[in-house]
């Protein structure tokens, strides 16, 4: 009874793509997805396409999955990694993640290939909310933060809401999803570190212009504390509401462990909230940067 193979060390009751759902009344599941593809999109980012159980496809913009990444170095990866959804393709039964190969978890993900299985749990958290009164929104993201804002832009496009996407990156060849935002009908403005166009002063001028032209009924941001602060300042000055998607080291993903706390300021009082449960999308004006 003790001669279990190493991969039988843990219990695994994850639902396969074609399994019946044993917990039909539960919104969150643990799924064993099949990797359809996992390709580089540039020097640092990969796009993973997964075939999953249909319950996983109920995910909406801003929600995340908790990923049980393979081990990149022979040592164990002890915790899941939270990752926001890049795209849900209900027709194809597929879920997509756009990720930067950076830490141990994502380095493990890089190793997965077509046909491999990948344990993902979700959909989790509270995602973006589009108020019906908003006709035009501005999304401002940096680096991999743009992956989180892409499905929001898709949702806005589907609802006839105009999107201006301000895309910030270190170098022009690392700007994520420019084509995707463009295909959705979004106006895109690309700013990069290498020519100084991503400076806060320049981004501020771009945002001020959008506000003046009636293109900014709401702000959305992800991926940069500096850009969050800029949007907060302008949001307060011009009375523009906003939402921010935040990250934090996470353990359980469902709200039980209280590891993934971030600080918020509400009516002058500082408080902590769980990114996994009260977020990961929060009121932009209440968020304290990281």
């Amino acid at each position, binding site marked *: 009874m003790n001669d279990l193979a190493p991969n039988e060390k843990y219990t695994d009751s994850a639902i396969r793509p074609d399994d019946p759902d044993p917990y039909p009344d539960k919104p969150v599941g*643990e799924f064993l997805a099949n990797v359809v593809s996992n390709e580089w999109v540039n020097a640092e980012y990969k796009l993973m396409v997964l075939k999953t159980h249909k319950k996983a496809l109920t995910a909406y913009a801003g929600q995340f999955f908790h990923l049980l990444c393979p081990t990149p170095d022979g040592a164990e990866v002890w915790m899941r990694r939270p990752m926001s959804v890049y795209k849900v393709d209900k027709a194809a039964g597929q879920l997509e993640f756009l990720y930067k190969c950076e830490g141990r978890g994502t380095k493990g993900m890089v190793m997965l290939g077509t046909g491999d299985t990948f344990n993902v749990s979700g959909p989790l958290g509270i995602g973006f909310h589009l108020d019906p009164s908003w006709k035009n929104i501005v999304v401002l993201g940096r680096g991999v933060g743009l992956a989180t804002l892409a499905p929001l832009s898709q949702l806005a496009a589907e609802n006839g809401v105009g999107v201006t996407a301000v895309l910030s990156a270190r170098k022009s060849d690392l700007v994520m999803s420019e084509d995707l935002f463009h295909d959705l009908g979004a106006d895109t403005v690309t700013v990069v570190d290498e020519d100084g166009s991503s400076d806060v002063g320049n981004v501020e001028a771009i945002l001020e212009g959008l506000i003046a032209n009636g293109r900014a009924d709401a702000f959305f941001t992800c991926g940069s504390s500096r850009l969050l602060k800029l949007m907060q300042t302008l949001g307060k000055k011009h009375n523009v509401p906003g939402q921010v998607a935040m990250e*934090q080291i996470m353990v*359980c993903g469902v709200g039980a462990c209280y590891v993934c706390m971030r600080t918020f300021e509400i009516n002058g009082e500082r408080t902590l909230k769980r990114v996994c449960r009260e977020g990961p999308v929060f009121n932009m004006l209440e968020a304290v940067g990281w």
Partner: protein
Amino acid sequence: MVDLSVKIGDLTFQNPIQPASGAFSWEYNEVIDLNRLGALVAKTICREPRMGNPTPRMAETEAGIIQSIGLPGKGIDYFLENIVPEYAKFKPPLVVSVSSESIEDFAALARELSVPNVDVIECNISCPTRNTTGGNFALQEEHTKEVMSAIREATDKPVWAKLSPNAGDLTSIALAAEEAGADALVIANTFLSLKIRTDNFRPALGNKFGGMVSPALKPIVLRMVYQVAKEVKIPVVGVGGVTKAEDVVEYMLAGAHAVGIGYAGFRNPTALTTIIDDLEAWCDERGIEKVTDLIGAVKDDDMEMDPLIAASHGV
């Protein structure tokens, strides 16, 4: 049909699988059917609202995680009014973990928690990131005895003492808790740990020290459960590194009446109910009709007592 039910004191639990305090909350209802669990175990509650420790609260190590949460919560009043009703929606008994830095307040909290929908009071006298005079009573015999006696006098509810693996002589502390009137022992809390980052020379956790959680700890905690279960008459709940049904079997063979599971539920959110299914199948395959037949059934009568253990018993 395998009878998975176990009794701890006068309370019957439908199976020996419980969440470990701190690693669980009613929010897991969004993933699994909580009515299948042996018990529901609420996060440790304190008198006043607490923010908890600075972030980061978790760091990954070579062989598990270390965490330092700091018992965040909204205080006893909010808990009684809002959280107890959340748990009352489900059938399994509710075990409420409680902590305080003073003996008087600990007893008062136990008294206030003695309400109909609370079934067991688990005394967290072993939070690893509190010091001896700040709530970690389980590091010393006399502190354990004092606090557990005060709690015993304050309530008629079953009281369980959660003990610390960081104590020098766990068996003596277990005996002290039993003598003070504890109805059961929960062994053990997390192991006090430290991680230092080599990139910036700083401790990895915002609170510096954390408690280690890992399957790697199972053999150590199993040894503790084994040693304590041989000495006390009250039931023991084993907590440490359970990730599969065979681990539950091991703890029960060592003398535990039930197990608490933390880490496995983090790794696989459906782990607890899967382990219940697997335990039933494991017993069924072997013709074990009652899971209680496993309790203390380790076959070691023909083995000499380990000299180290013998020495600690004065043999």
